[in-house]
């Protein structure tokens, strides 16, 4: 037959082909993660997460302690500092299975943000002192980046740190204001971008400072978001004295560290696991809610909306795995993570939008106490109604924080498209 043509001259040796499945080793790892979650994730916490109820400080600390006991808390850290030494595929599997199981999100500020910066740029003394305290929960860190006048234009931070010396030694005096400080009301420590020089390009006068929030002059004020939640804060600094030992790396090099922190670990930036968990929840709701005498899932208009986001999510899973496979050698995803961030957050927002729609008129009641521990009243409307609209409004933040989606498009234009 027609076995002619140069293209048919193929080798007879077995070649690894494209394969979307995890390897047996990766599947074994996944089984370990699943076993751990089954044995150690408290049902009470999973129920709260799945039900969209609000987590307390103790809930989050409890989950951190459980992960730390397993050695899995700081999963981006090298082994010598107490990390599990996972590759990017393992991290992806872990983060996804945690999301699917309803595990609380790891509070990222100490573990995923400051930790890697200290490991790369901190002094030996800083590493020895701060890293173990992140792991065992001695310190709760928050992030002092944004200011009222420095959002997307982060490099224009104005909070000032002026070097001085007195009887207690060398120090900075810090004055200014940070904002959007997530969980700052639980924190005892804050890492800040502060201005240490004004006569240079704005990126070259920034330093990275660790500040004890119990120092006199630090004041935390709540910001209540549109869903009624207290998650973010303003932090004010008035003549706050910070020892120079708390400077990370070199003075005026903070922008380098800040950028490193922002790009360090983005395997999970698409939040595929969160989206799959949320979509599963939506599917259950759509099977129960009714329109025109049929389950909502069989309503052509609603089914089409669900199918569109389901397909987008299926594509996103593969896009995410492609990026991970590309960096599996240990590299760091670059501007590709901007693509994952944009589309990943759009998908998460669309799923919460559909969940809100699925509630029909019962999206309206705002029974805030039903979102907290100890609520024993009768829910108004379907079980999921209490959280549907508030989660939808809360999730509007996804396309704003961590570099707004418009900033991500600027990055793509510059780094990938070369425009």
């Amino acid at each position, binding site marked *: *037959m*027609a*076995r*002619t*043509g*140069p*293209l*048919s001259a*193929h*080798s007879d040796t077995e*070649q*690894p*082909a*494209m*394969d*979307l*499945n*995890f*390897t047996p080793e*990766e599947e074994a790892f996944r089984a370990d993660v699943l076993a751990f979650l089954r044995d150690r994730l408290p049902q009470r916490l999973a129920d709260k997460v799945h039900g969209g109820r609000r987590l307390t400080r103790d809930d989050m600390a409890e989950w951190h302690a459980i992960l730390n006991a397993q050695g899995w808390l700081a999963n981006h850290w090298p082994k010598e500092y107490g990390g599990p030494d996972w590759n990017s*595929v393992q991290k992806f599997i872990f983060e996804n299975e945690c999301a699917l199981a309803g595990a609380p999100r790891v509070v990222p500020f100490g573990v995923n943000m400051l930790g890697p910066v200290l490991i790369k740029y901190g002094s030996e003394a800083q590493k020895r002192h701060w890293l173990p305290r992140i792991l065992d929960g001695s310190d709760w860190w928050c992030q002092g980046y944004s200011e009222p006048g420095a959002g997307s234009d982060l490099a224009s931070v104005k909070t000032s740190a002026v070097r001085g010396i007195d009887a207690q030694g060398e120090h900075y005096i810090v004055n200014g204001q940070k904002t959007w400080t997530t969980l700052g009301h639980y924190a005892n420590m804050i890492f800040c971008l502060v201005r240490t020089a004004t006569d240079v390009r704005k990126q070259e006068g920034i330093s990275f400072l660790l500040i004890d929030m119990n120092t006199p002059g630090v004041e935390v004020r709540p910001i209540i978001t549109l869903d009624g939640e207290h998650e973010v804060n303003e932090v004010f600094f008035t003549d706050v004295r910070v020892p120079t030992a708390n400077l990370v790396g070199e003075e005026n090099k903070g922008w380098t560290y800040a950028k490193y922190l922002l790009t360090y670990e983005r395997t999970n930036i698409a939040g595929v696991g969160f989206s799959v968990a949320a979509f599963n929840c939506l599917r259950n709701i759509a099977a129960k809610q009714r329109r025109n005498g049929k389950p909502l*899932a*069989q309503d*052509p208009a609603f*089914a*089409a909306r*669900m*199918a*569109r986001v*389901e*397909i*987008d999510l*299926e*594509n*996103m*899973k*593969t*896009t995410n*795995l*492609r990026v991970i*496979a*590309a960096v599996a050698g240990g590299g760091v995803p670059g501007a590709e993570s901007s*693509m994952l961030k*944009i*589309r990943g957050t759009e998908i998460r927002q669309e799923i919460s939008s559909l969940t809100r729609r699925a509630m029909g008129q019962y999206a309206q009641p705002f029974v805030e106490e039903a979102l907290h521990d100890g609520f024993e009243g009768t829910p108004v409307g379907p079980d999921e109604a209490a959280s549907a609209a508030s989660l939808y409004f809360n999730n509007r933040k996804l396309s704003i924080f961590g570099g707004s989606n*418009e900033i*991500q*498009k*600027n990055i*793509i*234009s510059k780094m*990938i*498209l*070369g*425009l």
Partner: protein
Amino acid sequence: MNFQHTEDRRMLADTLNRFVTEQYRFDTRDRIARSVQGFSSDLWNRFAELGVIGALFDEADGGFGGGGFDIAVVFESLGRGLVVEPFLDTLIVGRAIALSGNDAQRATLGALIDGSRIVALAHGEPDSHYELSRVTTRAQRSGDMWQLNGAKAVVQHGEHASHFLVSARTAGADDAQEGVTLFLVPRDAKGVGVRGYRKIDGGRAAEVTFDNVTLGGDALLGAAGVGFATLEYAIGCGVLALCAEALGAMDVAKDHTLDYLRTRKQFGVPIGSFQALQHRMADLLLEIEQARSAVINAAAALGAERRVRERALSAAKYSIGRIGTRVAEECIQLHGGIGMTWELPLAHYAKRLVMIDHQLGDEDHHLERFVALGAA
């Protein structure tokens, strides 16, 4: 998990891309696509000699590939060159024969693979609007013979195919899956009418009619009444091929548009320096990467059980339909007036991308099908 093609497939892609770049330049393509025949016999034979058709078939069927990723690699390259030769229908008809043909029919696969026999799928009808099981062309048995009556719409290269794969109803309601029977019909059989025409994106197609066409039992592909599964599988291969072809075309359209944004100056600067255009381009890039993932998902699912396979195929065709049209429209817009001209290759990529959504089911059709397959 592995997102690298095998060495063989990378070689296949490299060789084919080089051939298309060198031998299928835009002016050549434009001439072929507007020609009376609608494709080039010479280039078709050279593609066949190169082994491109063989890559679409399994070794057991006389080829040396045939996997989902083989189809994807070949058609992505063909899409990069807007190749108009009859690869798609050769794939669909050939895979149907490979799956359900008897020995005599399977013996013709060699002629498909070496390019000497051109075949076409005659399935869609004037009123079927992509619906896979809506078949009103009728075949009636009388003794050992069959009588075929009906009309088929937009048969690709219908004037030049020597044989049609025809779906006909032998039992059941007009839209029933049961009762669909497949026939291999010679174009020169008495009663076959072919009315050819140009297509807006290049190449030719035809309306094909069957007026009391008499066929022997040897024209049956598979058993009577149970042709739907074969048809669905073969068309599924075609859906994957179209998706991959669109991906290749999108990559080129994107590259052309990026070049234009970097070089075209207005207000004294390259228009690519404007944020409004940068963000639109970033959106396109993101969408194309999602389309690439959709093609990978579909190629990986081609060997899976029916529901998984067909869902992935519909997900991909929906994604490609939506994204391909968006890429086409945006690329024209980003080019401005020049994007409206025949002389600009980009315009032809845009036309092909939009027309792919009109072959084997559009965005709406496949979204509905995805939903229906999920509920089943």
